[in-house]
């Protein structure tokens, strides 16, 4: 085996090996922090009365059409879940005598999977940490939907020219100095808007003040690398029951981006491999054409 050919094989093996195992520490990706002026929301399930005023307002301020219910015919606007026309939904959890409402919308992750995977950055994180969507950059590949651990981005399945739809924290209203629609509409302050740091402190204060009332955890403080929408649940009702999965503290993009960057750092490995392949092929072809002529 010629030296260069060995280099190629070694190169490929090394690429494969670094891609899976001892990714050098230096290459490991740093944990992301929320931006300094990060904003977010806090939803306190114990305060919510399920009036759905927030859903109505959300549709109104985002110009989304009502969706007819599938369970009860003729219901005016009763989406089963988030959809291509619903960015915010109130669900009911019931098990025995345990009952809780749950508000679902984009979590505005600190290190969002959707932003990491989107080819040409239709999803971005703005300077307040809001995860924004720009349809002009979106090709509709739906990888964001595969990637999001909360299954938040939705697609308009029923039209020829669809968009991805998800909550953008009413950034158009924030720009005008207004509150997000749901927050403005809520009669019980079950969902509030504010600076992320303040919301975190507030949530912890509530748990400390009434430990018997709350499940002892603020969901989103660290989950999946942290989210900018935080949740409080009633005592005895773990967050999984509300549809917020236990995903650990590791941000989702960490594994994939670390592996990818380890292999493609500065594009060195592919270029080296390419050069080596070129040389080997060149040599082999030369040797072979020599032999072929010898044969004749």
């Amino acid at each position: 085996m010629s030296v260069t050919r060995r280099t190629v094989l070694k190169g490929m093996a090394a690429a494969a090996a670094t891609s899976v195992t001892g990714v050098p520490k230096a290459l490991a990706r740093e944990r992301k922090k929320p931006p300094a002026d990060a904003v977010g929301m806090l939803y306190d399930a114990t305060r919510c009365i399920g009036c759905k005023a927030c859903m109505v307002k959300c549709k109104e301020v985002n110009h989304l059409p009502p969706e007819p219910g599938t369970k009860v015919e003729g219901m005016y606007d009763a989406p089963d879940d988030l959809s291509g026309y619903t960015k915010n939904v109130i669900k009911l959890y019931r098990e025995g005598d345990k009952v809780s409402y749950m508000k679902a919308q984009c979590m505005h992750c600190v290190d969002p999977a959707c932003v990491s995977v989107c080819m040409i950055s239709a999803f971005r994180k703005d300077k307040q940490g809001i995860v924004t969507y720009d349809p002009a950059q979106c090709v509709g590949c739906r990888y964001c939907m595969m990637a999001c651990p909360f299954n938040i981005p939705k697609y308009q399945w029923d039209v020829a020219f669809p968009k991805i739809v998800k909550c953008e924290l009413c950034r158009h209203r924030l720009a005008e100095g207004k509150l997000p629609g749901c927050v403005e509409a809520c009669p019980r302050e079950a969902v509030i808007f504010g600076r992320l740091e303040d919301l975190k402190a507030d949530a912890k204060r509530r748990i400390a003040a009434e430990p018997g009332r709350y499940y002892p955890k603020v969901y989103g403080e660290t989950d999946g690398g942290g989210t900018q929408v935080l949740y409080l649940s009633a005592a005895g009702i773990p967050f999984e029951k509300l549809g917020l999965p236990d995903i650990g503290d590791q941000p989702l993009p960490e594994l994939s981006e670390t592996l990818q960057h380890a292999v493609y750092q500065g594009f060195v490995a592919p270029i080296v491999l390419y050069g080596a392949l070129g040389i080997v092929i060149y040599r082999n072809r030369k040797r072979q054409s020599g032999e072929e002529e010898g044969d004749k």
Partner: protein
Amino acid sequence: MNSHFRPVGGPILTKTFLVSAAVFAVSAAILVWRFIVGLGPTTAMSDLYPWGIWITYDVVVGTALACGGYAVALLCYVLNKGKYHHLIRPAILTSALGYTLAGVSVIIDLGRYWNVWKVPLLWNWNRNSILLEVAICIMSYVVVLWIELSPAFIEKWEEDAPWQWLRNLSIRIHPWLNKILIPILALGILLPTMHQSSLGSMMLIAMHKLHKLWHTPFLPLLFLLSCIVMGYAAVVFETALADSVFKLPRETKLLAPLSVAMVIVLFAYLAVRIADLAYRGRLGLIFRFDFYSFMFLLEMALFLTPAVLLLFRRFRYNPGVEFVCAMMMMAGGLLYRFDAFLVGFKPAPGWNYFPSVPEMFVTFGLVAFEVMAYLFIVKTFPILGGAPHAAAGTAHGVAGVPAPGR
């Protein structure tokens, strides 16, 4: 013609061709419908299963089965097993067709396809996106494959082209083509190495949604190894079919030594798979004997059986066994990729996906188109080796490994 490749000739409008054309026509009608009404009414995809068979079969499996060009090029040009040279053209042809149709399938699947021209523009790139790397690599590789195949067209047109300008152009391009061939061949190996492993990396992000039997940091390596096996198996399969359909001499003796390389790759794949599960304490999942463990065991059996059979020289030189082994490797790889993208993908309890009939027909239609294109091209252009291969084998025996015993 200066190579030992020959057009096989014969009538184009055979029964196979016409049946394929009919299937393709049905799928074309469905496609018109898809672009008018959107993906919802035409497919079984949903908000929780945003990717269906158009991605899983046509792209993820299809490109792997189209890795014949990659597998043979790797053996031919890098390991310098020169005597397989005449396998190269048919392999490149199936690769070129497979990858091109995977590209077409992506466009069909994209919801906002009219924005796709923005993807190659450098300043738009999100360099963290694995899909971006896959997309750029596949687009480039399609071009590379057709360039690699172009000598077949040029050789033909130099002698007899439907138009004079085409003939002149071919004569002019030929010497130039020879000059760029080496950088192109190298790209033809680099690009699949990159994007086939990255196809596996794409599922890394679905950390909590993908079943633990399939989610592992080794996804890229497993996808790379499996694509080599699948590509090689597809070459064996296609060669056997082409040889019997066009009554060419069988190539078993030439393919057999290649099978040894595949045994190595297969065992490497199996070792990584099992060692990884063991290391992360997930072996128990295999023996739960639920649906997932059954799928996993089936995958393993489809890889292990050919790996063991092909260990024996007796079986390697038996065309029947070789053919069955190739089918098992293709099926095993197909199943692995389906499991990693669809079957093991459980985004939320209570949701399932099974392709709709129109969705399946589009996939059949694309395969039918591939068959038509293949038949047309091998009949018209010098793709398949027409010379008696036994002689070629001896002549080249000195180039690499010793000639196979006979």
